[in-house]
């Protein structure tokens, strides 16, 4: 929805007011380099400015975490060795494992490290899309909790030292605990201090974006974080001539902006116009930056307008664009359908439309559409309540199920179950003696209480296993993933999780004479088998179909190229690229602006086709999904819309 563009433009404008500014992206799928039209990396690089100074960097979370652990390996190993029964081999093995959810965990810490490297006056952060930004902002609290766990691990050592030696002298391990706790506290305070930290929220003038904004602002406020400016980006300017596209679009957008003003009356609402040319490079960002700093505010009393609800797009020319046959796109043998793509391109709408289409196929198959993005909008697209319980959707001859994975709720439920199990183990260990291994109990309870980073990906993956596993109730699952970076994290999760499960199994086997294998061993064995089945499914082209969803614009095109490459590298080459909201060539008169925009789209799709042919021996099919104003909502509209998807064959 233009986060990166707005962040870039704002950073440039602030720098050219004479400040020293650092611009940094924490989204694992970076597009800052695309925006600035130059390669960026984890080290800050200078950009040309007329005044002040501007450096830009793209965070590399995996490398940053590796560096963080390497620098503290001895202390971490010492704490683990003091606080657990693990030996050096076990600890080495655990410290070497890849950490899922690393982006959120390390994001803020790495930001601090970069910020201290030079005397910046301001740091502008381009974050990951909604769901994972909420996780990122919750990370200071997690750091404090991690420090508490490490401290509890030290407690037994401290107690024994005092009992045996009389006095305890803090060492490097205690210093590490204090460092992590202090970082957590400091970052938490920084985020909540309006004098030092300001949040800007960016949305498109679309109902779905407004719903997500309302939810997110409420969640942020509940956490003590206040958003300042709310920026409505890419607002269609009024056309001077009659136009089949923008007349309807302007009315629909005004209705959404009006609703936004009413929904969040206490925020300053600003609007940025849709630009004819997507700004790329420092020079192109300059006018946008001025617009942001000078500010074009939305008037408090918006112009009166009727609520537009006309489902109308440009008629695709069927002679040149053959309609997509569902059975070619997703043959009946397919069990897993994955949709990935940049934030705001319409993944959820496409996923819902595919589920609707598959739910109407004969002979009937049991279909589930599953959203794993922590910022859900499946319910809004289907226009019905959807939550973590699997819900049946029936509309005419169509039937399917829907679920939005709620990782927080699932974690709470698991915690309760595991805490009971831990009580049992420790009670069994006591075996009637008055001795209570209190220190160990606290450490294990701590570990269970600690929300692991990457819980959305973990529970998303478990939900897929649950739906499709050995006795899974569904034939086909359509997964609506979080935006690109975290969709890739989700797809890497089975490998990462399997490594952890195998590490736990090895350790459990090693100590089984003391603690027994019990239900935990059986759980790990089951999970290991499920994960291997899921890996096999993911890499099976007969049973898995991945699609990249994108829009016909430069930044999404560049990201799609990388997404396709990355999916191919993971052994899940996408079968298709769905170009959403495409203005189809039609017979209705367009205004000059819309005609120019349609021409730009055509050029982007042509370049995309060339990119795709270059990356793969068998390039994915390009599918065009027509732009509708407003976008399709509800089962019937989604079904009609999906039937209008066409195969795009750019010449």
């Amino acid at each position: 929805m233009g986060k990166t563009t707005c962040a870039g433009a704002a950073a440039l404008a602030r720098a050219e007011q004479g400040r020293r500014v650092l611009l940094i992206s924490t989204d694992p799928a970076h597009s800052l380099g695309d925006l600035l039209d130059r390669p960026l990396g984890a080290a800050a690089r200078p950009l040309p400015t007329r005044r002040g100074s501007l450096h830009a960097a793209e965070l590399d979370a995996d490398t940053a975490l590796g560096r963080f652990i390497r620098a503290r390996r001895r202390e971490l190993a010492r704490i683990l060795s003091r606080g657990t029964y693990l030996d050096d081999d076990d600890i080495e093995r655990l410290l070497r494992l890849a950490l899922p959810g690393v982006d959120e965990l390390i994001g803020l810490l790495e930001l601090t490290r970069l910020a201290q490297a030079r005397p910046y006056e301001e740091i502008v952060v381009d974050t990951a899309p909604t769901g994972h930004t909420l996780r990122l902002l919750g990370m200071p609290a997690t750091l404090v909790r991690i420090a508490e766990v490490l401290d509890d691990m030290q407690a037994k050592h401290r107690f024994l030292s005092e009992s045996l030696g009389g006095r305890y002298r803090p060492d490097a391990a205690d210093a590490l605990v204090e460092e992590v706790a202090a970082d957590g506290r400091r970052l938490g305070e920084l985020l909540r201090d309006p004098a030092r930290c300001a949040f800007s929220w960016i949305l498109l003038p679309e109902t779905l974006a407004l719903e997500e904004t309302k939810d997110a602002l409420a969640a942020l406020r509940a956490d003590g974080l206040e958003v300042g400016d709310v920026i409505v980006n890419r607002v269609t300017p009024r056309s001077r001539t009659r136009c089949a596209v923008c007349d309807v679009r302007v009315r629909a957008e005004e209705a959404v902006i009006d609703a936004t003003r009413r929904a969040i009356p206490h925020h300053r609402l600003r609007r940025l116009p849709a630009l004819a040319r997507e700004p790329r490079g420092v020079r192109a960002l300059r006018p946008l930056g001025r617009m942001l700093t000078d500010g074009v505010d939305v008037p408090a009393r918006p112009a009166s307008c009727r609520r537009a609800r006309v489902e109308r797009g440009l008629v695709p020319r069927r002679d040149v664009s053959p309609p997509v046959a569902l059975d070619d796109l997703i043959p009946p043998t397919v069990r897993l359908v994955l949709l990935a793509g940049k934030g705001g391109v319409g993944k959820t709408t496409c996923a819902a439309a595919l589920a609707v289409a598959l739910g109407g196929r004969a002979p009937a198959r049991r279909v589930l559409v599953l959203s794993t993005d922590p910022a859900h909008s499946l319910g809004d697209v289907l226009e019905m309540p959807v939550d973590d319980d699997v819900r049946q959707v029936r509309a005419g001859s169509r039937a399917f199920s829907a679920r939005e994975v709620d990782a927080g709720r699932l974690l709470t439920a698991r915690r309760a179950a595991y805490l009971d199990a831990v009580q049992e183990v420790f009670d069994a260990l006591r075996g009637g003696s008055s001795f209570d291994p209190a220190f160990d109990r606290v450490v294990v309870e701590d570990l269970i209480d600690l929300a692991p980073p990457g819980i959305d990906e973990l529970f998303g993956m478990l939900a897929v296993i649950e739906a499709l596993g050995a006795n899974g109730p569904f034939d086909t699952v359509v997964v609506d993933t979080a935006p690109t970076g975290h969709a890739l994290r989700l797809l890497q999760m089975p490998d990462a999780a399997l490594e952890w499960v195998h590490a736990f199994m090895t350790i459990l086997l090693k100590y089984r004479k003391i603690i027994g294998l019990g239900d935990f061993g059986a759980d790990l064995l089951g999970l290991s088998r499920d994960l291997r089945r899921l890996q096999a499914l993911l890499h099976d082209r007969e049973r898995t179909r991945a699609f990249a969803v994108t829009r016909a614009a430069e930044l999404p095109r560049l990201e799609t190229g990388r997404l396709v490459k990355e999916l191919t590298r993971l052994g899940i080459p996408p079968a298709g690229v769905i170009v959403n909201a495409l203005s189809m060539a039609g017979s209705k008169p367009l205004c000059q602006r819309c005609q120019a925009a349609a021409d730009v789209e055509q050029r982007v799709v042509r370049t995309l086709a060339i990119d795709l042919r270059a990356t793969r021996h068998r390039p994915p099919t390009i599918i065009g999904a027509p732009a509708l104003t407003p976008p399709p909502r509800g089962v019937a509209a989604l079904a009609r819309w999906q039937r209008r998807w066409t195969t795009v064959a750019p010449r």
Partner: protein
Amino acid sequence: MIILDTLLVGGIKFVLSKIVDAVDAELNDDTHLREELLAAQMRLELGEITEQDFAAVERELLDAIREIRGRRERADEGPGEVRITGIEASTWDEDGADDDEAADRPRG
């Protein structure tokens, strides 16, 4: 470490009663055999043992489980279950050194 703590605090009596339980379980309870089976399944999953190794272990364990079941069924019909009534402690002598497994097993 757990054993050390337990010894220090819980005392020798606690340990001896545990040993009685363990021997009793070995003779009349198939729980530990199921645990052995689970361990073998886990080792197979980890690739530490081959399918053939696993099949051999599985056969042996399932036979033992069947034997215990049979003994239990017979016990339901009349006396026959082996009962442990006490434990006699003695020091390990030199013949215990040639077999680690044997050294782990209490004798009474």
